[in-house]
């Protein structure tokens, strides 16, 4: 019994195959999903998705969205998703530093909101490289 995982972004399908287990970061904490999980719908936070295939874990950075877990079918809709193998470490680090600098000089509610979002995204990408 394996889970079928679909990770969709607005312009492409990032992942569409079977997995053994996933660990998802949601707004209310991390949840682990094994085969035959009860059907739930949850919001996905900007964070890491860990996928297990045959005792090997793969990490993906997700930029927020929604997940629906049905009958051994997981559909994750996110704004953007990147496999950790696709992220360039130096570029991710640079983006993180730029995001931190932008947050420091953000003035006003609106710039702070934007800068916060950008920072969280950049941080997730760097984390995806560091985990496993």
């Amino acid at each position, binding site marked *: 019994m394996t889970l079928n995982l*679909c990770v*969709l*972004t*607005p*312009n*492409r*399908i990032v992942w569409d195959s079977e997995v053994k287990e996933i660990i998802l970061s*949601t*707004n*209310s904490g991390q*949840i682990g999903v094994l085969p035959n999980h*009860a*059907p*739930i*719908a*949850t*919001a*996905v936070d900007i964070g890491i998705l860990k996928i297990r295939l045959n005792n090997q874990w793969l990490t993906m950075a997700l*930029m*927020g*969205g*929604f997940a*629906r877990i*049905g*009958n051994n079918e997981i*559909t994750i*809709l*996110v*704004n*953007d998703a990147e496999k950790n193998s696709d992220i360039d470490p130096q570029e991710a680090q640079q983006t993180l530093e730029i995001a931190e600098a932008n947050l420091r000089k953000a003035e*006003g*509610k*609106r*710039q702070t*909101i*934007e800068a916060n*979002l*950008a920072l969280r995204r950049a941080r997730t990408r760097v984390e995806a490289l560091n985990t496993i």
Partner: protein
Amino acid sequence: MACTNLTTMWVSSKTSLSDSSSWSFRSVLNPLPLPNHNSSPLRSSSVSPIQSSLRELRDRIDSVKNTQKITEAMKLVAAAKVRRAQEAVVNGRPFSETLVEVLYNINEQLQTDDIDVPLTKIRPVKKVALVVVTGDRGLCGGFNNFIIKKAEARIKELQGLGLDYTVISVGKKGNSYFLRRPYIPVDRYLEAGTLPTAKEAQAVADDVFSLFISEEVDKVELLYTKFVSLVKSEPVIHTLLPLSPKGEICDINGNCVDAAEDELFRLTTKEGKLTVERETFRTPTADFSPILQFEQDPVQILDALLPLYLNSQILRALQESLASELAARMSAMSSASDNASDLKKSLSMVYNRKRQAKITGEILEIVAGANAQA
């Protein structure tokens, strides 16, 4: 080849000269009397002007030929890119279909009338943000002009209503237009690049999101070019925010389109010509919904879903805009190629006539010289 021409003409000139005068002979051979006028009295010195204008004509014909090659190539490149743009839209369909399904399911399971999600909040409108999507390069006919004119018209309307406005410009052409007009407040300049991806849509979405949530603007409208057919594209204005919780897309006149209806365009050939067909899909929404338990509060779930919807709307607008730009470029380059080939034809005809006139002139000189000697 010129020599044989000369000899045959020599023979014919010999026979006809005895019958008619040289003037009428020349007029029979050359239907354009004007360039001959100068050549008759000053035969020796007129040879060089004719020669140089022959060379100029030949250079012009070569340059027109080159231009035609370039425009033809640009048309083919644009056609190939339209296909890629089409694929991008098709790739985005699984996402939007699933999203719509989930949105419907959630709306069924909740009473959305009293849902209070920040992105759907309808406030009294004092300031409007206009997202204007233009292209990056020129040579696409009236494409960029149409959308900019529509933006200007909308700005005037808003000014007439006494509302404040700000512009978010996407695309180099729009950017340069608004940069030259500092009296229009522009919030951000963005660029879509050759193929809009989720990252670019995210950048626009972030900007729009923060503007709306921080209550700096009360309404966000999206101006882009809808891809109707290869020769026709329509600039449209859609209201992006506030979103309706059911996921309807509304334009400024309040006409709402159900989110489940999706239109796709396909580049095909019909009767040997490239055409575009639009197909309307309706996403099948399940009549029964599996009992989904919500991990979080339904409001939080909607909170997570609606930005996704916003993102996909913006991406679709960018993709359609790109497809219309490519179609406009295809038709502009196609008519440019046709014009170039017509110009080449008429220039070649003038060139040939000039060349024949020159040869005739030389023959007549020789004949006159021979007569003078005899």
